[in-house]
């Protein structure tokens, strides 16, 4: 239980810190830059190295590459849904999660990923 409390606090602090940096810095285009920062990855990988060692974190980052490609595909789909289908942001982002899951697990399986 303590582990998950620490995870929650660490993740929250890192994500908030990046978000605040984006809000404070000028020009405003920096907001998007820090909004897409790998903040969850920083917190998770730090804890992973502390608990399980470097090879565990290396395995996580190898899969994270598939997740990042899926994130790019997901963002394009969200953008198209917002502009062409004129969906609301919440609906578009939630529907597109299916695209992220299919792309991420598809790439992971193609790369010979094993649980």
């Amino acid at each position, binding site marked *: 239980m303590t582990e998950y409390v620490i995870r929650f606090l660490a993740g929250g602090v890192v994500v908030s810190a990046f978000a605040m940096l984006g809000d404070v810095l000028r020009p405003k285009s920096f907001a*998007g830059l820090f909004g*897409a920062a790998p903040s969850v990855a920083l917190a998770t990988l730090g804890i992973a190295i502390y608990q399980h060692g470097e090879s565990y974190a290396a395995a996580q980052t190898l899969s994270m590459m598939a997740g990042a490609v899926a*994130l790019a595909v997901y963002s394009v789909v*969200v953008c198209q849904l917002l502009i062409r289908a*004129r969906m609301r942001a919440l609906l578009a*982002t*939630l529907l597109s999660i299916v695209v992220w899951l299919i792309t991420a697990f598809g790439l992971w399986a193609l790369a010979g990923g094993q*649980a």
Partner: protein
Amino acid sequence: MIRFALGGAATVFAGLVSSHYGASVGGLFLALPAIFCASATLIEKHEIRRKREAGLAGERRGEEAAALDAAGAALGALGMLAFAGVFWLRVECSAAGAFAAASLAWLCVSPFRMPCRRGGDRSSTKGGLGAGCRAGRRPCADRSCRPSIGYCRSHGRRPATLLGRQVVFACPSRLWSLRSHRG
């Protein structure tokens, strides 16, 4: 507060997946767009509120603002890919060095999207978008031309202003048309 809660929740979720299904599956969720869902919704709400205060409907503007954020996230994902790649290469040598090198890789790759997003007002191609920006300074009068978020592609007049700056394209798919427009 919402970002703190979501960031914490996403980190806990990634940890739970890793402990149940292994590091390989858990790693996928380090790039889960959970925070993006919230930030896009917040940006849309913020834009709608701003427009309503000015006496306008604002729904379309809100969608456009969220779409712009999505376009940025698509290019930002490349930065995340660079982060993961460099971290994976360096972590066996030194954990601290891997964090430093991966963060540096992210910093080097991510800002490349910024000139793309703001490139319209810097272009100087004759007859292209930039020429329209500087010379025109007036919106396209043709009603059939709908510069929904970027610029009037058929008339090449003036990029629409969004979030206080000139925006050239909304989606990465329009990056291609920007390049071809510049010739």
